[in-house]
């Protein structure tokens, strides 16, 4: 699979409208990375709907999924501009043009790993949103602030579970196993803060750019209905 990092822009034909933010490629790629993370993690969290260990978590994971996918939608819309097609950007790219971190792709069917990812991801996401809230583009900063308001409740949920499980060996093992993936969510300059908050030693990050084998089946499932209908179908 080819990389989707810095070598990408000239072959990437993103359906960005002139009203979009295509003028700033680096920032567009950064926003796209966040949106793709939220889309795919949202999908992963929705996989617990109906089968979580308790009813409260069915509800929690469904709500969290809905929020994350909502954040993805808003960021895609920001990239393509008000009249652009956010769905096309979300669903119609070849796999190697997705910018999501391998962390959000992992198909985790174990509760300890699922909660470990929730907690690590929300911790990383807070750091990245804090940086984005200071962006010089008011549209980017404003949207980041709005997303962050909602994420506060995801963090409360993740912290509650972290407090409950932090001394359980299965949970701590899952956190350690996923740690290199969590580091890969953030650009290198923001990783120091994650190291500090999580309290684990720096490790070699599983970087954004290549994809895991878990992405293709997820994307195929996610886009199955869309691909089966002719372009332009109104639902």
């Amino acid at each position, binding site marked *: 699979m080819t990389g989707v990092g810095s070598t990408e822009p000239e072959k990437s034909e993103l359906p960005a409208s002139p009203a979009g933010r295509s003028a700033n490629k680096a920032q567009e790629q950064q926003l796209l990375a966040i949106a793709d993370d939220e889309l795919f993690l949202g999908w992963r969290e929705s996989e617990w709907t109906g089968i979580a260990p308790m009813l*409260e978590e069915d*509800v*929690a994971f*469904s*709500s*969290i999924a*809905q*929020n*994350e*996918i*909502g*954040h993805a*939608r*808003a960021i895609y*819309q*920001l990239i393509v501009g*008000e009249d652009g097609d956010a769905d096309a950007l979300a669903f119609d790219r070849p796999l190697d043009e997705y910018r999501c971190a391998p962390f959000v792709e992992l198909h985790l069917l174990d509760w300890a790993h699922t909660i470990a990812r929730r907690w690590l991801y929300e911790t990383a996401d807070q750091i990245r949103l804090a940086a984005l809230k200071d962006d010089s583009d*008011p*549209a980017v900063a*404003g*949207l980041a*602030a*709005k*997303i962050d*308001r*909602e994420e*506060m*409740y995801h963090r*409360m*949920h993740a912290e*509650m579970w972290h407090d409950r499980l932090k001394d359980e060996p299965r949970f701590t093992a899952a956190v350690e196993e996923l740690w290199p993936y969590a580091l890969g969510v953030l650009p290198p300059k923001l990783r120091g803060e994650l190291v500090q908050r999580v309290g684990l030693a720096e490790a070699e990050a599983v970087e954004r750019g290549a994809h895991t084998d878990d992405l293709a089946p997820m994307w195929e499932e996610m886009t199955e209905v869309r691909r089966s209908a002719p372009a332009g179908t109104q639902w």
Partner: protein
Amino acid sequence: MVEAEVWELLEEIPDPEIPVISLVDLGVIRSVDVQDGHVRIEFTPTFLGCPALEYMKRAIEEKVPGAHVDVIQDDSWSTDKITAAGREKLREAGFAPPAPRLIQLQSQVHKCPYCGSTETKLENIFGPTPCRSLRYCDNCRQPFEQFKTI
């Protein structure tokens, strides 16, 4: 059509998920601008993942024919934008209204909308929609929905 008439029409549109309050009560209409007969309405989503977003936009367009609706994705909405009348309607319908943001985030006191007791506990941060949590009142033994403060 003048601005006041547009606001009156918008007050008639119920929130699709909590129909006891209108879009105006909910505070999601950020501005109404009427110039040379052209109506422009700025509308902010509550939660970004709200599935009723498109529905509300269409409801506004149907209610105010010819209006141009701009969906604003910035940080201008918070639960502090819910009007006093809106809060009272929520409480009457059994939804605990969100307390003002600055107070709620410090105090962590949540009142039961039925008996007014503060002896309530969190059952689930998440509820039937993204904007609600589930709580239980130890005093009147009534579960209730708490509109999240955001």
